[in-house]
């Protein structure tokens, strides 16, 4: 097992387990959207593993349609997390950029262009990561888009996430969860620009995106844990806090 595969397996396990943990809660009505987001993420990461990709793609016709599935699964994940985070952190500006008119335009354009570039490329044989077709212009643009949309959503939320983590009076799990979310978001932006650096990043170019996704997932796990524990704690009326030492 080489380093790249190790990153993928770790990310996959974390995503899969957190989705599984959330399933019974989602059935009870607690935040089903986050569950679906994690399902999309697990799917995307799983398809990122070469052996899985080749197996699934051959079922889909062997023309790399599986890669398109990865793209849209990731867009879906990022969109859900983006909308939920903007609401959670009370970030009105981010919410407008993600789901307001601008956000919808960006999403629509990205979705359309992703499909267009995919169709313009000539990729008759299954190739994980579309590595064999890297020199084609549509494939290059397709790759840039694939990183750009998550980075766009992430960039809107970095400040609110870290602001939440810095908040001194909040419970520890919330601060850690928000902080990890923030780190994952930064990773997503870095991933989008890392190919612009002159450094040779292979295979560490797998490290950034997968650790970013893992950080986001673990952040969500911590926040979920806090929600579970604060349900169990009895709430004192605010007045009792003012004179109980």
């Amino acid at each position, binding site marked *: 097992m080489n380093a790249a595969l190790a990153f993928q397996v770790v990310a996959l396990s974390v995503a899969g387990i957190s989705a599984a943990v959330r399933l019974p809660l989602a059935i009870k009505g*607690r*935040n089903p959207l*986050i569950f679906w987001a994690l399902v999309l993420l697990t799917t995307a990461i799983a398809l990122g593993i070469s052996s899985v990709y080749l197996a699934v793609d051959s079922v889909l016709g062997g023309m790399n349609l599986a890669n398109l599935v990865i793209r849209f699964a990731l867009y879906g994940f990022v969109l859900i997390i983006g909308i*939920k*985070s903007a*609401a*959670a*952190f*009370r970030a009105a500006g981010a919410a407008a950029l993600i789901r307001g008119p601008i956000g919808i335009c960006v999403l629509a354009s990205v979705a359309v262009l992703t499909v267009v570039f995919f169709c313009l490329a000539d990729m008759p044989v299954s190739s994980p990561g579309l590595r064999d077709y890297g020199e084609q212009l549509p494939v290059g643009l397709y790759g840039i888009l694939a990183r750009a949309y998550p980075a766009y959503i992430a960039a809107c939320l970095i400040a609110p996430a870290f602001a*939440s983590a810095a908040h001194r*009076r*909040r*419970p520890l799990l*919330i601060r850690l*969860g*928000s902080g990890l*979310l923030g780190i994952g978001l930064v990773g997503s932006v870095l991933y989008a620009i890392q190919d612009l650096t002159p450094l040779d990043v292979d295979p560490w170019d797998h490290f950034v995106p997968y650790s970013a996704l893992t950080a986001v997932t673990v952040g*969500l796990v911590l*926040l*979920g844990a*806090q*929600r*579970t524990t*604060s349900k169990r704690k009895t709430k004192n009326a*605010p*007045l009792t*806090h*003012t*004179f*109980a*030492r």
Partner: protein
Amino acid sequence: MAVSARSFQNWRTAAAPGESNADLCRRTGIKRSTLGQQIVRGKVSEDTVVRVARAYGKNPVEALSDFEEYSDLLGGPWRPSAAELLSQVSYICILQMILHRSQPTDRQDYPDLVRFPHANAIRSWFEAVDPGDLRQRLSAATGVAPQNISAQLLAGRLAPELAVEAARLAGVSLTGGLVATGLITSDEAGWPQDGQLAALRALSDSELVFLARDRLDGVGKQIRKFEHDQENELLLLENLG
């Protein structure tokens, strides 16, 4: 900050002769690792000194004054002013006094002051003794940044040496701040037994009412902040939890 470990060791052999660290910890309830760390670091906290003093039958104020950093504790003014006494009364008791006075009986059962410890005691005390620029003067005298002082007060604490220095600067009883931070009791500081009650009774009706208004204002702001925090927390967890 603390007293030097060497002075502490000298003092404790006089105050508690023949007692080992383990004995000390057993009598005071301090963890052995805590005491050990403080001695090793060379700085023993005032809380430790107070607890040892109490455990061996010594008055904590006298004990602290044996140390160089607090040598003027006994010699300085000790009688608390009315404002200091009142600052230690919780708003619940003030309201109870108002209720009591508004009833046409002359029953003697005054509010039970002991039952309501006052979460903002140190901040009220600070405001009561502050001639106007105490924060800045305290910062200049001790080198602690004004925002750190404010942060400590907001959290309901103040380092003992800051409390004593603040009292020195304000010209009030040196032990007042230590009582307000909860380090020592008002009895140990030599405060008159019913001092707080007497100060409360000495207020005219209008003074009492305005005192209540000021206190309730502070409490209201605190509660609003707390409610605001809870609301934000709930929103966050509902969306991402």
